[in-house]
């Protein structure tokens, strides 16, 4: 049973359970991430570690479920952490990362998942800066771009490698 093609088979118990577990993991990572001191003085910009779930899911259970988990994670995570403000940032970073990984998935092998991780993270950060500039209407925030691209590459590598290993090790869905 190739799970990737499961999109059309409806919400089986197994599917709901899997999605639920991944959502739970994503939320935990999200909350933990909030405890990390901000990289920049601009509030709302986070490290994007939760994107490891997006990465992993994309290469295992497919884009539809990944999107569902992503949106739920963003909404629930931000509401429960009490900071509705940050939701815009999460959406900007999360959705852009999702789209990037979705596109790259077509040309990457399972060994190259980490590449999607890097680009996903970088794009995630760019999305957050864009949002910050739009909200505060100060283009000067773009000056953080180099810092955030570099940190994006680093966290992207980190989450990417984790995701790569997990994807290769996972046999449940093969």
């Amino acid at each position, binding site marked *: 049973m190739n799970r990737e093609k499961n999109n059309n088979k409806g919400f089986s118990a197994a599917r709901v359970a899997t999605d639920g577990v991944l959502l739970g993991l994503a939320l935990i990572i999200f909350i933990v991430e909030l405890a990390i001191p*901000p990289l920049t*003085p*601009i*509030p*709302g910009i986070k490290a994007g570690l939760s994107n490891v779930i997006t990465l992993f899911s994309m290469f295992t259970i497919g884009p539809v479920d990944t999107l569902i988990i992503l949106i739920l994670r963003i909404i629930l995570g931000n509401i429960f952490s009490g*900071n509705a*403000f940050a939701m815009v940032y999460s959406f900007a970073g999360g959705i852009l990362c999702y789209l990037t990984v979705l596109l790259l998935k077509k*040309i990457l092998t399972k*060994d*190259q998942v980490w*590449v999607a991780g*890097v680009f996903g993270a*970088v794009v995630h950060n760019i999305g957050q800066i864009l949002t*910050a500039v739009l*909200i*505060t*209407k*100060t283009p*000067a*925030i773009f*000056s953080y*771009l*180099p*810092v955030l*691209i*570099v940190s994006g*590459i680093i966290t992207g590598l980190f989450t990417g490698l984790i995701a790569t290993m997990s994807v290769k090790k996972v046999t449940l869905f093969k």
Partner: protein
Amino acid sequence: MKTTDWIKIIGILFIVSVAAGLILWFLPARGKTANIYVDGECIKSIDLTLVSEPYEFTVTTGDGVNTVRVEKGRICVVSSDCPDKVCVETSWISDSGMPIVCLPHRLVIRIEKVSHADDNGFDAVTR
């Protein structure tokens, strides 16, 4: 694409960003005018080189109050009633690298070359 190609691409991106970051960091202080923006509009401009004695003032927005402290050559937000206090934690800024941002209050303090406050910084002028 081969993995090595990807490594090359990411490597180049990394180096370029580091270079850009270093250049921005070491850029000579572009000006010493602190511009205070609320909601994108410059509401106040302070020439930090002309400050003799330190002083404080408050900026009140519809969402709350920030107290700003000005000293010769530098400026900071010394207190705020916003929920996250990131603006206060940013502490002093003395050049154009980093702005002080209070997102809940839509307040941004940046050090730039010239004043960006203009007459239209006011919504109206009483006389």
